[in-house]
């Protein structure tokens, strides 16, 4: 928690510096035209909100109200012990600050922070879900997490008229009591949760102010961005080639990579990441090609339809966004790296023999000097907004009648 508070203070400090012209000695590196194009490609931010066509209640206020209530409701777990907020805590950046998630049992992967989710193509570290609502189904049904079923979820509405009223407002019909339709209630619950989760976003950052200034050619404003952050940025888009995967306004290409993090989860047991999760996705009745998608034209299923399984996907994990990265420790799919500096050192001292690559390897040990390491860390910290880890807590919906 101390590192989260420090990062938040640093983010606020950097914001204050940018908001106070004349407070800092102006200095701007001589970014080339190519570097300026690369910098501009990392924005603008925030993106325009787009509803999810596979979720008919995406962006719908009554659905957001229902999803908000459900998110904090431990009755979704038959044990009454697990709610979404158990792992996705607003004062921990909608994550849990633990290396690996813990529900009713321990899990092998790190809890991802919930933010900017409409920017993602795949969900989960291995991309085992192709929509946010599908991503909600896995923890609900997983015996290690909620250990719920369609029947237990439907039962929650039957025992709570107020919740059933919120459901009716969101979907235009009451949650059915008939057993054969419980699956619809389950999927709708996941869609309502998604409608709420889509509203969780990170705000503008010191980097965004700098990026916009560079994009409009305002070097005076750009020069207010800390020099160390500029130096770190130059490494990020240049020699470090971090931008190969962490590109675009969300600082992620939305795909998968093997970055040399061990995938053993127990002696003799591995987490094969994308390789296994893509197969699970294809076999699932809840993917975007299935009957539960509300997108009749299946335009949102392009990635699912075209995804190809390759041997190289073994041990690959989703490239995470770097927005608010300073407050999402610990890092990597298994939470094995405790601090942002350690992440930079991981890439600096990478074991290249560990990466499976043919031809020219994409990842090479960066062998950064201490000053370069510091600069890259400072740059990454400027990708965090003023709220830091302490996210605004949404108001719970009023009673429904």
């Amino acid at each position: 928690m101390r590192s989260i508070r420090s990062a938040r203070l640093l983010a606020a400090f950097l914001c204050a510096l940018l908001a106070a012209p004349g407070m800092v000695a102006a200095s701007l590196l001589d970014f080339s035209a190519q570097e300026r194009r690369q910098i501009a490609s990392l924005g603008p931010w925030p993106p325009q909100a787009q509803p999810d066509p596979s979720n008919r209640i995406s962006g719908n206020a009554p659905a957001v109200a229902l999803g908000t209530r459900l998110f904090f409701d431990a009755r979704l777990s038959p044990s009454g012990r697990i709610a979404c907020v158990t792992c996705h805590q607003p004062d921990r950046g909608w994550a849990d600050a633990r290396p690996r998630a813990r529900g009713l049992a321990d899990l092998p992967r790190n809890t991802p922070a919930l933010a900017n989710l409409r920017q993602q193509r795949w969900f989960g570290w291995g991309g085992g879900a192709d929509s946010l609502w599908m991503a909600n189904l896995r923890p609900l049904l997983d015996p290690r997490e909620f250990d719920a079923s369609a029947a237990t979820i439907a039962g929650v509405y039957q025992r709570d008229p107020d919740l059933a009223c919120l459901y009716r407002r969101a979907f235009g019909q009451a949650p059915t009591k008939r057993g054969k339709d419980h699956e619809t209630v389950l999927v709708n619950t996941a869609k309502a949760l998604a409608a709420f989760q889509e509203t969780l976003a990170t705000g503008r950052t010191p980097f965004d102010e700098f990026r916009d200034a560079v994009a409009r050619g305002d070097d005076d404003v750009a020069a207010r961005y800390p020099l160390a952050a500029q130096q770190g940025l130059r490494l990020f888009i240049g020699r470090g080639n971090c931008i190969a995967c962490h590109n675009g306004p969300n600082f992620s290409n939305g795909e998968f990579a093997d970055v040399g993090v061990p995938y053993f989860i127990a002696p003799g047991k591995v987490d094969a990441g994308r390789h296994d999760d893509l197969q699970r996705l294809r076999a699932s009745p809840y993917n975007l090609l299935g009957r539960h998608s509300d997108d009749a034209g299946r335009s949102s299923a392009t990635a699912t339809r075209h995804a190809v399984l390759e041997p190289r996907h073994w041990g690959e994990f989703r490239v995470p966004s770097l927005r608010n990265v300073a407050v999402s420790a610990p890092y990597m799919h298994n939470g094995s790296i405790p601090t942002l500096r350690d992440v930079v050192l991981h890439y600096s001292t990478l074991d290249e023999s560990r990466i499976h690559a043919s031809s020219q390897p994409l990842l090479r040990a960066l062998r950064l000097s201490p000053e370069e390491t510091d600069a890259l860390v400072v740059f990454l910290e400027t990708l965090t907004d003023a709220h830091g880890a302490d996210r605004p807590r949404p108001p719970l919906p009023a009673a429904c009648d």
Partner: protein
Amino acid sequence: MTARLAALAAALLLPPSAIACEPPLRGEGVQKIEGPRHVVAWRAPTALPLAQFFALEFAACARDGSRIDTPRIDATMPEHGHGMNYRPTVEPLGNGRFRASGLLLHMPGRWQLSFTVGDETLRAALKVD
């Protein structure tokens, strides 16, 4: 008339591999790849999007005038020895024209686009920023 006769005479004298064929795709942004047995013309989006799906239209013809079966399309990063994470689909539009969808270039850098027409693969270089 004289020019047409001259062209016909030239075509008759040349080996089949050198006979021109004109893929039925013209206009701004169209690029052509000439192979020994086929010619492909393709039109990419104005700016190739990084890590976003895109589609492209292309046309192909065989120099010997034979019918074209639906070609295959792929893209790779030769320097890094990997391709896309997606397998594009190709839809015939009729008259030797096709539409490929499901392409996604997930990294900036040099890519190679390949069109496989029959037993021949024709390649074009792409640069994604």
